[in-house]
């Protein structure tokens, strides 16, 4: 113990070199732990993208492609799943819930995803957390759109704002479905998943936009174009002329003609329903429906095809059976992936980068320790006198050895503590900017046992490295004896 306090005082006597060594070790420790934290955090935020969903079904193809498109909204899979297939699968006894997903449109670069209201009930992420609404309310109106937190923030949208959806993923090219404007009914709380960058609409609205190759619904026979339509300060305006109306004279809608005629009264019901919803913007908007929207409301067509189905099963034991049932589905080529497994597989792609990062940080730590070694070695010569004095008052060579080891151990330990402190300082300062600018939620945790293991290894290597100067000074103290040579 006495020797450790001597080592400590000796160190303080050489403050400058002490602090330089301390900081070089601290910074290398911060870097190492920072990389570890970033690695686990990216991994966990990646893994948290979806949870509670047992299977994702898509058209037959690469599982990573299906995962990327359905969960991360990156890339596209063809929307080839028949809606009837969805119906059939959702009725399987093992299936507890099934949510249809359809994609392909965008709004100012953000993905537009069509689904139905069950999505909010069943989709979960992280630890089976459900999406929560920050402002507004989720609305079953056909032209209500629910937007992710980042969409709202970046585009500065409020509840009630109008949104025009573009066909295709691009921000510029593509057809604007401006005959069917949406209004924002709810803004979701940040989930730090792809949903934050997504607009969610109803399947019927998606279908309404896409019916007849992006044509527009014509006016129903006998219906007048309301003056309000023409007065709308809206891009859609130009599409609402008679030519469009005539072009679409033999529109699919005519097949439903009779039904529609009968449903003219139903129109009122629909409106009554909307009025009931205690939502003022909503009510306001329903009065501003465009011609196409009014027709679409009447038709309420479910889409024929969708991109993916999220499925929850009654029991986890059913997963594999259901997966092979889907993969061998006769009516059309389908494939089912288990999200947790597919995420893990996708993550493997990053493992090479992970290894490279590990190697680099290991070298950074090594450099920090070598710096410490060279500083201790440089101090040895000037300390031979100190050692001779200690020998004369009864210190053993092992004490002298311990002095050096203790010194290295102390510097390294202090460096580790400082490094950990720096790490948390860094994490706390970066947490907010990372979340707001990159949508990356950095969870600040205690050091993991793996981190502690790494720190123990660093501490141990410092002690082992100090054997070199320790052994040298031991030899000096034996050969110098108590003779003070300078």
């Amino acid at each position: 113990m006495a020797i450790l306090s001597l080592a400590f005082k000796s160190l303080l006597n050489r403050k400058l070199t002490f602090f330089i060594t301390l900081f070089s070790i601290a910074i290398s420790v911060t870097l190492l732990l920072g990389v570890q934290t970033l690695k686990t955090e990216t991994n966990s935020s990646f893994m948290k993208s979806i949870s509670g969903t047992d299977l994702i079904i898509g058209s037959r193809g690469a599982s990573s492609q299906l995962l990327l498109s359905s969960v991360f909204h990156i890339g596209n899979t063809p929307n080839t799943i028949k809606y009837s297939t969805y119906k059939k699968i959702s009725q399987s006894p093992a299936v507890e819930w099934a949510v249809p997903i359809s994609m392909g449109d965008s709004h100012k670069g953000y993905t537009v995803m069509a689904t139905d209201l069950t999505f909010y009930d069943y989709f979960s992420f992280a630890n089976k957390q459900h999406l929560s609404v920050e402002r507004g309310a989720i609305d079953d109106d056909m032209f209500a759109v629910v937007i992710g937190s980042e969409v709202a923030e970046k585009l500065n949208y409020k509840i009630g704002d109008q949104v025009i959806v573009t066909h295709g993923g691009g921000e510029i090219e593509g057809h604007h479905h401006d005959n069917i404007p949406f209004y924002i009914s709810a803004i979701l709380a940040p989930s730090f998943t792809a949903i934050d960058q997504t607009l969610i609409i109803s399947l019927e609205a998606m279908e309404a936009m896409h019916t007849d190759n992006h044509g527009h619904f014509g006016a129903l026979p006998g219906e007048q174009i309301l003056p309000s339509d023409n007065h709308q300060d809206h891009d859609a305006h130009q599409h609402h002329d008679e030519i469009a109306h005539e072009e679409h004279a033999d529109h699919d809608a005519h097949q439903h003609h009779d039904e529609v005629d009968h449903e003219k009264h139903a129109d009122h019901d629909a409106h009554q329903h909307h009025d009931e919803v205690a939502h003022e913007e909503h009510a306001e908007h329903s009065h501003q429906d465009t011609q196409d929207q009014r027709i679409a409301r009447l038709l309420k067509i479910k889409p024929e095809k969708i991109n993916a189905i999220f499925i929850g099963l009654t029991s986890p034991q059913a997963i594999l059976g259901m997966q092979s049932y889907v993969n061998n589905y006769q009516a059309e080529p389908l494939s089912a992936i288990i999200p947790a497994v597919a995420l893990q597989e996708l993550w493997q792609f990053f493992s090479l980068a992970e290894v490279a990062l590990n190697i680099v940080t290991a070298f950074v730590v090594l450099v920090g320790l070598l710096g410490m070694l060279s500083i201790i070695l440089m101090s040895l010569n000037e300390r031979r006198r100190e050692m001779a004095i200690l020998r004369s008052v009864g210190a053993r060579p092992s004490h002298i050895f311990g002095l050096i080891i203790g010194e290295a151990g102390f510097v390294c330990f202090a460096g580790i503590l400082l490094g950990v402190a720096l790490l948390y300082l860094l994490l706390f300062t970066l947490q907010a900017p990372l979340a707001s600018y990159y949508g990356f939620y950095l969870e600040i945790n205690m050091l993991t046992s793996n981190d502690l293991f790494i720190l123990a290894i660093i501490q141990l290597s410092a002690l082992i490295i100090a054997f070199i100067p320790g052994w040298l000074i031991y030899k000096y103290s034996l050969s110098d004896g108590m003779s003070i040579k300078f």
Partner: protein
Amino acid sequence: MININNLRFAWQKEPIISIDALSIEQGQHLFIEGPSGSGKSTLLNLLGGVITPQSGDVEILGQSLNQMSSSQKDSFRANHIGFIFQQFNLIPYLSVLENITLPCTFSPDRKQKALSHSGSLQKEAIRLLSALGINDTKLIQRSVNELSVGQQQRVAAARAMLGSPDIIIADEPTSALDNDHRQAFIKILFEECEKENITLIFVSHDATLKHHFSHHMNLQELNQVSNKEAL
């Protein structure tokens, strides 16, 4: 109390010390002289058990150093011997008090003795310093670098005397002092050694100090290595 028998020591096969017999009595004040390089410091290292002779034996207080393990020798040294060197006796990063009490960290015996004298190590250090002519009690908390060379020598002497070791070995302790301080230093050292019945072994080139001592020894005459070389 110190007996040397057929002591032979060589640094890297070059013989330095070859003494057939030498005995030093308890309480004796021995003055050792000899030219530079004659092996005085080497002899003191042998007496302190820091280096081990190739043959022969040193017996101190009835105990043979040859029979001790190296760690026993280290604690024997801590318990029984106080050292004073020519210069740079003190550890620069420790305070005056910490330097003086340093032997107590390695020798519980000396700590006990020091405590029995004054009740606390600090009081004992102050007592020894004032006996050596340093009366400024604030000085003990200061860094040793702030002391004059003469003060440093006296601090080193206080350290050697703390806890009443049986032997004080001084290796040219006065060469950094001017004549007045040197005489005063010797006087105080003698008084303390007499009071505690400490055996003093004093190495110096300075012949003017010789007359203070009851016993004298010229290492060059005694040491057969240097005799042979002379022949």
